[in-house]
């Protein structure tokens, strides 16, 4: 062990010390969630979409919320959605949760090598998917499966074939499970590199503007990856070119084991980053389906009206492990989610629908069971095409395809070598 150098501070001067942020909660003691700084439902004003970005400073520090604890929808951000639309949102969130639960079990059974659930964050992708239009393009992270599961035109069987890396895997076994690509559903191919997609979303939006198109882009990033240069780069380019893009920061408090303060969230907000870049910015309750829809719709209208980008920080909580390779009990309180002030997005929308007389616990249970049966049936069908554990993986020779548009001579030779066993 090296000897600690003693303080070189001259007399009368305090020696400097390094500040390393720490969460208030760790295994064995509770989190003090007062750091979140929430606002009461209905309390935050809703400015017109042509608000000056500089005037969104308060919105970037407050928390846009619609759903109150008693289930009522309050205030100017209430999107006044039809009850039928709300029930569709609820069903999509239940579908996402049931899909995640099934796939977690499948990973334990080694049918897939890896899985990433979105437990507790289902409202964000679902609400935004409902606010976007056909042709818009999302550049998601690995935890926005709800963007796909909110749609009826993406088959769960096909998604599971990707997860199982089987012979029907549309990614031909090349990508980690959950790294979907669905251009037809406005879902950009997921990268495992973090943050790269954020600036690409801005580029896609710039292209749409260059072509005088009407489609917009939606970029996604987690709180942890906002520390990457690509995040700050994206804010600069989006602001400079007034790109028609929604810049979503999903602040679920945790980047694997790293608390959001290590990404720079201490004593400030991620939404505040946007204001500093000249971008209209909102901080929104990500577990409030109505607030998610309303804020997404507001941002989409801004983009579609040539008013430029909007940054939205979605405050939520990563209720599960980062991935199937992670054990959060090693670094945070086990009951943290139960104490999280913004609750469970599914329970909150259910309570709202019941409060307005459009739902019941019995109907909720029936819907949940119906969706769980659909997910189970999809899994059964997907497994008929194989899983990673039974070795029904895509043809190894296919690994040489798509490196280039046409296969160059050196890859033809290497493929021949693989096939010949030389």
């Amino acid at each position, binding site marked *: 062990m090296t000897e600690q150098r003693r303080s070189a501070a001259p007399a009368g001067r305090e020696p400097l010390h390094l500040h390393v942020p720490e969460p208030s909660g760790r295994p064995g003691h509770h989190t003090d969630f007062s750091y979140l700084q929430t606002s009461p439902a209905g309390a935050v004003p809703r400015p017109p979409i042509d608000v000056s970005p500089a005037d969104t400073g308060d919105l970037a520090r407050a928390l846009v919320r619609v759903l109150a604890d008693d289930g009522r929808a309050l205030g100017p951000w209430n999107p006044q959605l039809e009850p039928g639309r709300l029930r569709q949102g609820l069903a999509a969130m239940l579908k996402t949760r049931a899909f995640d639960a099934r796939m977690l079990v499948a990973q334990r059974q080694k049918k897939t090598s890896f899985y990433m659930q979105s437990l507790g964050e289902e409202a964000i992708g679902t609400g935004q998917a409902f606010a976007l239009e056909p042709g818009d*393009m999302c*550049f998601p992270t690995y935890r926005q499966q709800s963007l796909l599961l909110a749609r009826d035109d993406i088959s769960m069987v096909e998604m599971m074939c990707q997860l199982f890396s089987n012979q029907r895997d*549309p*990614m*031909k076994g*090349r*990508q980690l499970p959950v*790294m979907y*690509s*669905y*251009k037809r559903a406005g879902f*950009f*191919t997921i*990268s495992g*590199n973090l943050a*790269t997609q954020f*600036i*690409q*979303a*801005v*580029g*896609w*939006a*710039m*292209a*749409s*503007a*260059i*072509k005088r198109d009407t489609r917009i*882009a939606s970029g996604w990033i987690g709180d942890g990856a906002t520390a990457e*240069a*690509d995040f700050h*780069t*994206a804010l*600069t*380019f989006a602001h*400079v070119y007034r790109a028609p893009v929604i810049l979503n920061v999903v602040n679920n408090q945790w980047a694997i084991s790293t608390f959001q303060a290590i990404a720079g969230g201490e004593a400030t907000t991620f939404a505040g980053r946007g204001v500093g870049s000249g971008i209209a910015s909102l901080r929104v309750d990500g577990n409030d389906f109505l607030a998610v829809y309303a804020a997404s719709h507001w941002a989409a209208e801004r983009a579609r009206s040539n008013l430029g980008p909007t940054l939205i920080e979605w405050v939520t909580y990563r209720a599960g492990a980062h991935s199937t390779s992670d054990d959060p009990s090693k670094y945070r309180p086990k009951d943290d989610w139960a104490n999280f002030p913004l609750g469970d997005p599914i329970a909150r929308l259910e309570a709202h629908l019941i409060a307005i007389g459009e739902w019941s616990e019995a109907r909720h249970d029936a819907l949940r069971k119906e969706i769980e049966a659909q997910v189970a049936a999809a899994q059964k069908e997907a497994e008929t095409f194989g899983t990673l554990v039974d070795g029904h993986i895509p043809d190894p020779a296919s690994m040489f395809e*798509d*490196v*280039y*548009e046409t296969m*160059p*001579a*050196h890859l033809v030779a290497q493929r021949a070598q693989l096939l010949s066993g030389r």
Partner: protein
Amino acid sequence: MTMSEALTGDAAAVPSAGTSTMTMIQALRSALDVMLARDPDVVVFGEDVGYFGGVFRVTDGLQAKYGTSRVFDAPINEGGIVGVAVGMGAYGLRPVAEIQFADYFYPASDQIVSEAARLRYRSVGDFTAPVTLRMPCGGGIYGGQTHSQSPEALFTHVCGLRTVMPCNPYDAKGLLIASIECNDPVIFLEPKRLYNGPFDGHHDRPVVPWSQHPLAAVPDGHYVVPLESARVFREGRDVTILTYGTMVFVSEAAASETGIDAEIIDLRSLWPLDLDAIVRSVKKTRRCVVVHEATRTSGFGAELTALIQEHCFYHLEAPIERVTGWDTPYPHAQEWDYFPGPARVGRALRRAMED
């Protein structure tokens, strides 16, 4: 073979309009002009490329002609320049982005290596990145270590990228058009010392302009020099020189000054490359010298040497020689001690002719 024979011998060199004498800068500009006019999905951007027309003037006049939504300035952020290019490519555009100096590409490494190069593969063709990244490279202009580098080997190592380096106005235009039309991402390296003349390494002699060189005769319209095609720049019997960029002219000078009848292969496309042209020549001359300006260790010459060993071992009469930049950063004041000039290439040619 003379230069004009080399020119007319190129199958793709049928001019569709008149021909003008151009510098490499003018030829590159002409390629961008042709593609901006032909394809509304082509956009051109980068640091200083808009109103001003680029620090090397390649994009001069293009913004005035095509407007600010087709040709525009970018923030000083190479990661952002490449990142938005990838996003534009995913949308369906054909972005041509300029990295002001190849030495500046490092902040964009993730977007090049993990994104542009792999988009097609990882999405099984759902998304592609038909992006062309132009980068002035190489030394000879007293640029010091941050304006002189030749980082081609960092790109040839990356599967999914195409790496191209022209050495004359005719190839520069034809290869740039081919690169823009290519649906794979292309790293387009421009030897900046060749922008205004065929520099042969004799830095102490008067500058030779392109106007006196046959490869400065450039068709005004659209043509392509196919990717993955090398050019036999000089036919010879004694030894094969595998090279590209500025070193093509340095090698030509070395051959002429030593009197060794070297066959010079200008690779043009570094990867994927024209292996047949290399193997054909080395099997003919049975000797080989590999010349590049970049640093030696794990340089592209190492790959060329390995390929010759794999394909031509039993035809070789002598060890393969490598002439490269030293394994040091590119120095400023000692530029001409670093630069592998004709004297060093000549010494390697003589060694290759021993035995």
